[in-house]
């Protein structure tokens, strides 16, 4: 069977923001004067390959700047790979930087509808799922307020609830459990287990080992854009924490 996620030899290069012209004036002057200040580049990923099967949850661990979030960015189509093959099957739900991409000035409802239409659901399908989304987030009475007025915990709950209830085939989660209380975390663990049983593939990025243990069967250890090791959760975690 075709894996839900297939990544082969993925490379990603960033051009650092401060080294590119930010004004038409600068760009024109640069060309006229022939002043080619060197473009500063940074390779965030250097040849990463892995697969995730449907119904499998895979964790990505590694220190800051190891490329964990870049992997999720590429899988969600947000970032364009510099080189390599990336194939993702089905509908993708992503929580990057613990946010679903909510706009702070839109209300809860408007944001849910926006995300849903980006994920390819019709208005009717969205409205049918709205009660479940509000129920899970416990945000029923806040749905008509702009999300910038939400508390951090409420924001995270609604973002998570939105994405998991829109029936994604692939779920990309970046540091989602950095906020919220114990009870919400337990709620999330239960929901993620349900998602997996239904055949949803999950990629879970966290620097908290305990959370990875709760969610994932397999782990990828990333460092400086390369895979150091990959394998069953306990084995990789004990090597990672021991290292």
């Amino acid at each position: 069977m075709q894996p839900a996620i297939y990544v082969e030899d993925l490379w990603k290069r960033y051009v650092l923001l401060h080294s590119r012209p930010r004004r038409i004036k600068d760009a024109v002057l640069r060309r006229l004067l022939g002043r080619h200040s060197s473009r500063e580049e940074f390779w965030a990923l250097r040849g990463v390959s892995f697969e995730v099967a449907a119904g499998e949850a895979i964790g990505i661990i590694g220190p800051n700047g190891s490329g964990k979030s870049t992997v999720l960015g590429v899988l969600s189509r947000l970032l364009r790979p510099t080189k390599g093959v990336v194939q993702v099957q089905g509908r993708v739900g992503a929580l990057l930087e613990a946010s679903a991409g909510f706009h702070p000035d839109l209300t809860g409802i408007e944001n849910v509808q926006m995300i849903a239409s980006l994920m390819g659901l019709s208005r009717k399908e969205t409205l049918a799922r709205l009660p479940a989304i509000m129920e899970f987030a416990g945000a029923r009475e806040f749905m008509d307020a702009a999300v910038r007025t939400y508390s951090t915990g409420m924001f995270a709950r609604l973002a998570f609830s939105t994405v998991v209830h829109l029936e994604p085939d692939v779920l990309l989660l970046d540091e989602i459990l950095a906020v919220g209380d114990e009870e919400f975390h337990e709620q999330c663990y239960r929901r993620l287990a349900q998602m997996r049983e239904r055949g949803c593939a999950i990629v879970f990025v966290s620097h908290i080992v305990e959370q990875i243990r709760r969610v994932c069967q397999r782990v990828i250890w990333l460092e400086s854009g390369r895979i150091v090791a990959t394998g069953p959760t306990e084995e990789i975690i004990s090597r990672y924490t021991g290292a």
Partner: protein
Amino acid sequence: MLEALKEIWIYRQLLYDLTARELKIRYRRSFLGFLWSLITPLYQIVIMTIVVKYIWQHSEPNYSIKFLCALVPWAFFQTSVTGACAIILKYRQMVKRIWMPSQMLPLAVVGSNLVHFLLSMLILFGVFLVVPVVFHVSFLFLIVLTGILLLMVSGLAMLFAALHTAYQDTEYIITNLVQVFYFLTPVMYPASWVKNPAWRYWYLFNPMAAVCEGFRGVLMRHEVPLPGLVMPGQVVLPEHLLVAAVFALVCFAAGLWYFALQRWQFPEIV
């Protein structure tokens, strides 16, 4: 580029939502909000009428109405083109974190201004009930002019939105360029004020001049710039319209192409 065009259709619900959102911000969810937005054109017209009639003592008949006829399409052009520049940055929280067909953002600016334009046209027709202007079958030609204008504005909006996201002095440059074109286009004066007929002929090859004077020509003089319908002494001729239409198509294609080329890097640079 074709993919970006197809996405406009696939994600039309999103375009509708974003347009509604822009309108809500503009009118602050009230009809009074719409009336408030009429203040700027109103004082422009009042001041220019005073200047033309009493200071310059120019004897242009129905000057205020002639100004209004061209101001409505011009305002649509100006607010869309300048308003689209910063739209990607305004939605950076979304653009950075979720994949989206981001050409919808400048198009939503155009969409909300189109609604405003259509409401303004209604008001214009309301004014026509009380001033000596005759409703005429030639008014149907306004649909063609609006189509050309919409295509041109959509293309420029996508082009400038993509440029501004990469180069942050774009909005400043565009705002000033638009201001220059405001004076080079027959908005606050009719094209007949360009006295030399040869100059006027070439002057109307400016696409916005053809559109604005085209609106005025249809509404005030029932002039339709189509071959076979040209009246003696008509200002906007079929060749002016043709150039404007081709320019609009080129703008749309160029805007879509440049936007599709640039948009993959938006999440990295906003």
